[in-house]
Structures are given as structure tokens and as C-alpha cells.
């Protein structure tokens, strides 16, 4: 239901400055889980800001559900594409956790029981249900970040875009984010995440898009993206495949981006050998 299509997209922030995006073609089908990886400044954030109209293409075209994102208003696109920014302190303004989470869905016109249900579900998913009346600034940084996630989750948009969702989270926090991604997918929503955490990427997403200098340089399943053949491409953008991929290659098991896939490979090899 919510396909995103990017064709020949280029973006230049200021006249004469570098091309932050330099010809991106990408098609994301409804319900996909896509990770965007690459160095800072490679254009990941610039790309996703085109999905909800915060940035307009300098060249090329972005369509969401067939509608041209370049001409739809941000307010309209916000009901289709929810974008969680990296720094929660750039959006929190309410005196209480619950009203902060209500802000987005209210803007989309949700009221009454529908609003309450969406907010409660989002707070549950992020583990903030006991904190409804807490002042957000009395929460620690990592929980403020989960609050920002909840505040967009509650908008129940068909597409969810997360910018660095695991930064500053401990092991439990990363598990929560992973669970949020999983349940959003189960509801048929599209999830796109920018991340530097290769293990989180390999274990949580079904597709990995690697960007470098404003272009897509790799696009495939984690198995394809983290294959040995692509090691140099990844290294050129200062990324390293997860350890399991390296070990798998050394043991001649092909591409094994996750621990589970590595063990499967080993078992198959041991059984066969």
C-alpha cells in the first residue's frame, strides 16, 4: 500500500555546493524492512527527508503511494511517512510524556478512543507506560530517545523511518527497538532505518542499502551486502561487515551476516563433511 519510488534523485543544499544526493534510484515496496548504511555525510539523512517532503528534489522524482512527494505538503505526507530524528531534544516540548506522544496523532486529526489507543500502544512498545505524567526532561537521554520513537509510532503511519534508533541504547534498549521494528512489520508497515550498528542491521532488516557520496553503491539482502565480494565497497565507506560474516568467509561458508546464519552454515558443513 505504501510504495516509495525514487528516480534519478539529486539534491544540492546551496547553489554551487556539493551534491548531497547525486542520482539515487531506489524502490521500496510496502512492508519491506530496509536499512540504510554509510558514513556520515553520505546522504542517508538527506535521502529520507525527501520521503516526507521536508526536502524537495533538485533533480529527479520521489513518489509515495504513486503521489509525487515533491508537490504534496509535508502535513499531508506526515500521515503516510513518520520520521524519527536522531536527537530527541530537537523535538520534545511537552510537560509530560503522554502529551508529547499525543502531539503527532493529534496533528493528523486523531481524537478520543482512537488517539488514546494509539498513544497507549506506542508507550507500551517503548517501555514508557509507567511514565505518562513524567516530565520528559526528567528521563535519561536513552529513554528520551525512546520517547521520540513513541511519539512517531503513535501516528500509525504506513511508513516508519528511523534515523539512528540505537544510538546511546544499552543491550535492552536495542532489543526494544528491534521489537518495535518487528511488530511494525507484522502490522504490514514499511520500516526504513539509518544505522551504524552493523549487527543490528544484519539481524533486523531484510534489505541493506549502502550509500557513499550521495549514491547507492550496494543494494541487497544482508547476505548479499555483507558478502566477501563487497568487503572493499564497504571499506571504501568505512564500514566493516559483522564478525560472523568475516568468520564465515574464512571457514568457506559463503556469506553469513548473522550468528544464526553462520551456525547454520557450520552445521550444514559438519553434517555434509
Amino acid at each position: 500500500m505504501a510504495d516509495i519510488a525514487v528516480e534519478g534523485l539529486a539534491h544540492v543544499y546551496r547553489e554551487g555546493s556539493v551534491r548531497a544526493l547525486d542520482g539515487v534510484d531506489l524502490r521500496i515496496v510496502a512492508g519491506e524492512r530496509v536499512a540504510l548504511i554509510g558514513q556520515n555525510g553520505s546522504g542517508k539523512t538527506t535521502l529520507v527527508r525527501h520521503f516526507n517532503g521536508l526536502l524537495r528534489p533538485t533533480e529527479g522524482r520521489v513518489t509515495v503511494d504513486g503521489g509525487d512527494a515533491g508537490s504534496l505538503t509535508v502535513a499531508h505526507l506526515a500521515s503516510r511517512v513518520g520520521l524519527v530524528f536522531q536527537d530527541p531534544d530537537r523535538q520534545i516540548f511537552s510537560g509530560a510524556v503522554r502529551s508529547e506522544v499525543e502531539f503527532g496523532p493529534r496533528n493528523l486529526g486523531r481524537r478520543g478512543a482512537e488517539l488514546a489507543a494509539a498513544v497507549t500502544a506506542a508507550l507500551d512498545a517503548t517501555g514508557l507506560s509507567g511514565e505518562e505524567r513524567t516530565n520528559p526532561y526528567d528521563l535519561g537521554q536513552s529513554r528520551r530517545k525512546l520517547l521520540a520513537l513513541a511519539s512517531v509510532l503513535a501516528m500509525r503511519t504506513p511508513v516508519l523511518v528511523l534515523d539512528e534508533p540505537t544510538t546511546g541504547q544499552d543491550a535492552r534498549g536495542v532489543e526494544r527497538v528491534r521489537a518495535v521494528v518487528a511488530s511494525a512489520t507484522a502490522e504490514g508497515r514499511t520500516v526504513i532505518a539509518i544505522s551504524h550498528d552493523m549487527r543490528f542491521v544484519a539481524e533486523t532488516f531484510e534489505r541493506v542499502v549502502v550509500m557513499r557520496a550521495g549514491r547507492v553503491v550496494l543494494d541487497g539482502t544482508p547476505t548479499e551486502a555483507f558478502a566477501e565480494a563487497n568487503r572493499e565497497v564497504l571499506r571504501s565507506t568505512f564500514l566493516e561487515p559483522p564478525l560472523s560474516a568475516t568468520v564465515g568467509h574464512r571457514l568457506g561458508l559463503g556469506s553469513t551476516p548473522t550468528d544464526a546464519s553462520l551456525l547454520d552454515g557450520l552445521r550444514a558443513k559438519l553434517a555434509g563433511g
Partner: protein
Amino acid sequence: MSLELAGVGYRYAGAGQPSLLDIDLELPEATVVGLAGASESGKTTLCLVASGLAPRTVGGRIRGTIRLDGEDVDAWPMHRLAERIGIGFQNPATQLSQVADTVFEEVAFGPMNVGLPRDEVIQRTWDALDALRIADLAERDPRRLSGGQQQLVATAGLLAMRPTHLVLDEPTAQLDPAGTRLVADAIARLAAAGASILVAEQKTDLLAEVASRVVVLDAGRIVRDGPADEVLADPALPELGVAPPSAVRLRRAASAAGIDEAVLGTLDG
């Protein structure tokens, strides 16, 4: 040359419960001690207490003793401690002084504050820039650098004070892999050159790489303390909110699946 915490407890102003209890910790010369633990387990608080910022800057109440080279520092003012212990934080941007137009002036800020002779300030600034291999950034505007570069500039600002101890609170949390690499290499190099470093990190892969000893905190108490490879291989880590390093996880998964972990071979690098 060591920083010693003995029986240290700390409670924030207005807090009912102490955030740290019964901390015994020694930071010897030329070692990196890793600090692990879940969010709100007391890692940041321990960094603040070890560096002297708590209670001097953040208020609150403390007990126990902190010794620097055997000397009790209880009565030292913050600016005196600042010449011996440097502390870095996770957000590179908030560590910039906001008054420097160039990286050179940013790094010189600390030595200027403590009123060192001008030549000494200049010498130390160049030395610190060289130690982190960022002398080529000297002329740049610190606000216009990448996060990783800013973190190195902030660290150079600490080094310019020539501290005997460095405390780093999640120095790579907000950095991309390239920035993390820069900072990790710098930590390893500084320790090799004799520095004593306490580094709090969620990224246990990084601790496995740079730390020789690891301390794990839970609810304000030290619950594990030992050689890095032993502590990081502790099966109870996940219950303490700490993700084991990739290599440990992989070995454990292999043995759980009935596969001899030796098959995996060496897992370093």
C-alpha cells in the same frame, strides 16, 4: 601514578537513593580500564566522581576517599584537579568551548584557563594536536568538523592539560564507524604511551579491543572486576544489560549448538 577510589559512594542532590555504593577501583598507569553496565547503572556517575566533577560541579554528597598518587584530593578545587584528570563526554558538540574560532584555539582553551605561560600553552597545544594526529585541522572552525573529528579535538583539549588520567564517558556513542575507529585508535595509542584511561562504553567490541581490565556496574555497585577477556566472557553479562562482544557471542552460540568452538578459529579482528 595512580588514581584510587576506596569505599566511594555518591548521591545526587535531592535523590533518595545513592547512585554509587562501595566503589573500590584503582586506575594504574599505562592501562585502559573499561567500564560496562546497563543505562542508568551508574557508569556516568562513576566517571563524574572519578574526575572530581561530582560533587564539585554537580553538587550532591559523597563518601569514601579518592587518592591521586596517594594524596587525598577531597579538598582540591576543580581547576586543580582539571590539571591532573581529564574527562570527555559522549556528545562532541557540547564539549566545545564556544569561544574558539579555530581548532588551535579550542585545544589551547584549557591551558589558557589555568594561566600557563604563553610558550607553554603553545607547546602543549601542538603536542596534543600531534598526539592525536590532527595538526592538519588546526586552522579549521571546530563547529564545522564531523562528529568524529570534533571528538578528537575535544580529546586533544583534554590532553593539552597534560593530565595523568583520562576518563572517557562513552566517547564513541554518537560517532559513525569511521569516527569510532579514529577514537579507538587514539585511545590505544595514548595508553601505549603511558596514559591511564577509564573508558565507559556500550560497545563491548571496542572494550575487548582496547581495555586490559573491565569493570561492570549494576545498580551503582561493582559486580564484576577483572581481566578484560574474563569479564567480557562472563555468561551473566546479558542479565546485567551488557551485550557480550561479537566474538564471545559467536563462541557461545557455537557451543550451545553443539559445535566445537575451536572450529571458529581465532576471532580477533
